[in-house]
């Protein structure tokens, strides 16, 4: 091993994640599936336990101590999320279940009010289903058009295609991932936002993958909408966020109706609370939101720049080592890419790879990664995918390489 990671004590950080001590099929767990969902550090678990053991009640509507304390803890996370992605105001942060709900919320409310039939929503060939299907459903229900921006063979946005798609001036929303969950490609979101705005369109950035690996600044990138999930960011499941500019949220009609999202209710007419509460109906994911706050504190303390540097080293190592395996092909060769690596192997189907690696304790994902159309574009039906997190080590990548050698031999 020539590469070493300085200023980043992975061994110490791994101690924060109880699950990393588990054995799988009698082998040490090598968890390379963090892009699907990350493991949880002790502080996140503890924060959730603390709520349930010592400080729990429903939020917002209570005048008693437990409710006040819980409301404060819940609302404090809104400030944390706002600071974490550098939103202009806490009121621009809406809590959702996950990125999928965040995007659907935009499609249902902004999409059906700000977009008119014939307006165009543009997505790229490398979107996750979460950033494709809602726009298809909007198209089919509301009469908008859906256009697809091509990617190059390298797995980057094809700028010619982008310009073509925008040429007639009808695109009103560009919905694009900041980092592909299949190819690891980062998209140039600042440039895309400028382009979209110059063409009279808004931009929605699917930050699900990127937020885990890079410092996000929604104001610097000038995002109109930005979405992510807590569970990929070392936080609990059941909690995600939508950021939208205040002036956009102000005009959006509500999504779900019920408690907490109203200003007043009468049978004839109800009026809506101000954002963000307008978009949070019913009892929220209180415990999970507080867990997300702990996760944000955790990654912030380590620092996204340090995490990014660590993962960059891992990625470079993987890109150096894996292609040595005969018959293995990595998909995507984008210039700017992070620690999500998809590959196929001659004669070995992705599912067989995953199963055989699993027997060695190595967890990778196999399938279409919720990006079926992208599989078609890449000319495959599925891929195997290894993805890295702050707790991933170079040794684990070597273990993956060794495991893949054994897979290759079985299928040779």
């Amino acid at each position, binding site marked *: 091993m020539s590469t070493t990671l300085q200023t980043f004590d992975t061994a110490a950080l791994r101690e924060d994640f109880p699950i990393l001590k588990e054995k799988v099929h009698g082998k040490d767990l090598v968890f390379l599936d963090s892009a699907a969902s990350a493991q949880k550090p002790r502080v996140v678990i503890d924060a959730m336990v603390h709520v349930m053991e010592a400080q729990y009640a429903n939020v917002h509507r209570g005048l008693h101590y437990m409710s006040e304390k819980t409301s404060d803890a819940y609302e404090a996370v809104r400030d944390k999320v706002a600071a974490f992605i550098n939103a202009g105001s806490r009121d621009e942060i809406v809590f959702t279940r996950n990125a999928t709900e965040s995007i659907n919320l935009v499609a249902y409310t902004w999409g059906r009010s700000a977009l008119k039939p014939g307006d165009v929503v543009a997505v790229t060939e490398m979107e996750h289903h979460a950033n494709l299907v809602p726009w298809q459903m909007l198209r089919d229900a509301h009469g908008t058009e859906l256009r697809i921006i091509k990617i190059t063979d390298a797995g980057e946005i094809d700028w010619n295609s982008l310009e073509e798609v925008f040429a007639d001036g009808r695109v009103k929303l560009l919905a694009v991932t900041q980092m592909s969950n299949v190819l690891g490609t980062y998209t140039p979101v600042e440039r895309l936002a400028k382009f979209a705005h110059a063409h009279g369109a808004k931009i929605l950035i699917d930050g699900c993958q990127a937020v885990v690996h890079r410092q996000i600044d929604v104001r610097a990138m000038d995002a109109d909408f930005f979405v992510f999930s807590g569970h990929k960011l070392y936080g609990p499941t059941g909690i995600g966020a939508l950021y939208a500019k205040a002036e956009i949220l102000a005009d959006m009609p509500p999504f779900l109706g019920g408690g907490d999202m109203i200003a007043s209710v009468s049978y004839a007419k109800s009026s809506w609370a101000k954002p963000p509460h307008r978009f949070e109906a019913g009892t929220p994911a209180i415990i999970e939101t507080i867990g997300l706050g702990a996760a944000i504190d955790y990654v912030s303390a380590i620092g996204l720049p340090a995490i990014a540097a660590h993962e960059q080293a891992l990625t470079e190592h993987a890109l150096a080592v894996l292609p040595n395996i005969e018959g293995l092909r990595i998909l995507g060769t984008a210039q700017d890419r992070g620690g999500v690596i998809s590959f196929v192997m001659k004669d*070995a189907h992705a*599912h*067989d790879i995953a199963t*055989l690696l699993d027997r060695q304790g190595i967890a990778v994902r196999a*399938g279409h990664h919720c990006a079926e159309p992208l599989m078609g574009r890449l000319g495959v*039906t599925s891929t195997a995918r290894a993805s890295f997190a702050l707790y991933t080590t170079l040794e684990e990548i070597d273990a993956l390489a060794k495991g893949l050698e054994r897979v290759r031999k079985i299928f040779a």
Partner: protein
Amino acid sequence: MSELYERIVLERVKRPRHAGRPAQFDARGQGANRLCGDKVSIYVTRAGMQLHHESEGCAIMVASADLMVDATTGKTAADIHALAQAFAEVVTTGTENPALGELNALAGVFEFPSRIGCATLPWRALEEALQNV
């Protein structure tokens, strides 16, 4: 590493005996696994006296299809249905069934719950094909 793969499956994957789409056939059944993109078509010719599979997918699925053709050619629909159930039992429990012969090679699939669907997919396609005869 994995007995399952070593024991049999790969032989059938590399050199399937009954693969390909016949020029003429009486009925076809199809199966697809939405999770992984596995696809299989089963072709029935001469009232079940000849079967073929066209498989695109993982080793477990392809081997299962090829072994299935061996085990079911010439059998009645009722027999095949019984075999399908017995086979499903084997791959779900891991307990071999002496009556199933070579099909037992896939017994190890039970250790991989999410792969059981790969092993049984060709059987579902065959049952569909038989309904189309």
